[in-house]
């Protein structure tokens, strides 16, 4: 079973990386980009039956720094 954890900066937290990407996109001539926020995605390959609570615990204890980041968990259907 796989799950993906999406980690994003909280609203209001300045994102210098997102800003730099935004500038670069504008430099390439892409117009109409209002804002860019950069985050990360972590893919977990988990034993079947791993609970949502366990994955949340992983996020809180290590994967995300909840002072500045939010996380969202997405379970992937096994093929």
């Amino acid at each position: 079973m796989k799950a993906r954890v999406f980690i994003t900066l909280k609203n209001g937290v300045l994102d210098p990386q997102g800003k730099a990407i935004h500038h670069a996109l504008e430099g390439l001539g892409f117009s109409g980009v209002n804002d860019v926020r950069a985050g990360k995605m972590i893919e977990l390959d988990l034993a079947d039956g791993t609970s949502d609570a366990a994955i949340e615990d992983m996020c809180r204890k290590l994967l995300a720094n909840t002072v500045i980041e939010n996380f969202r968990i997405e379970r992937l259907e096994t093929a």
Partner: protein
Amino acid sequence: MKSAVIVFPGSNCDRDLAVALEQVTGRKPAMVWHRESELPDGVDFIGVPGGFSYGDYLRSGAMAARSPVMQAVKDAAARGVPVIGICNGFQVLTEAGLLPGALMRNARLSFVCRPVPLRVENSQSLFTAQYGAKEEIVFPVAHHDGNYQADEATLDRIEGEGRVAFRYLDEVNGSARRIAGILNDAGNVLGLMPHPERVIEPAHGGTDGRRLFEGLLETVA
């Protein structure tokens, strides 16, 4: 003073800190590897050094903060043992929950490496008692992730409680309120991005860092 310096894979200021401590205290610190679960008996000062522990994987300081030795550091801090985290050590202490806030990528995304002027905002702490009130000093910085951030309520609280130990005089890395170093609520844990251990003797181009360690020696020993 019986001091210990924690060493993580990727630490690179551990020796600088050890040399500074030995020069000031006359005693070599114990170098404690991150896999240890205990600190040497009777340690009365702990240094968490700068560097790039675990290659800054995930977030700077994130992996190091969860290594076995950090539980022992947390226990010692709770008993009142003074702990200093410098640069990557500051990042480790925030990630470990010993200090509030977080250190993010520098606002201009570039690595900053130069001497910077600082103001000693709290000259009453265990670490800063040898400095004058609001004294201006110079410590070098060398970091990519030194942009200190916390929510407004936390910033107001640490300011109000006199827990901002050092503040940059100029804009350096985008830190909220130009905060360079903070204390925990008990005052025995200090985290700062600038490097006092790199300004110990005249050959370093400055000696402003020396008094931090001398002050500790006086209070602790």
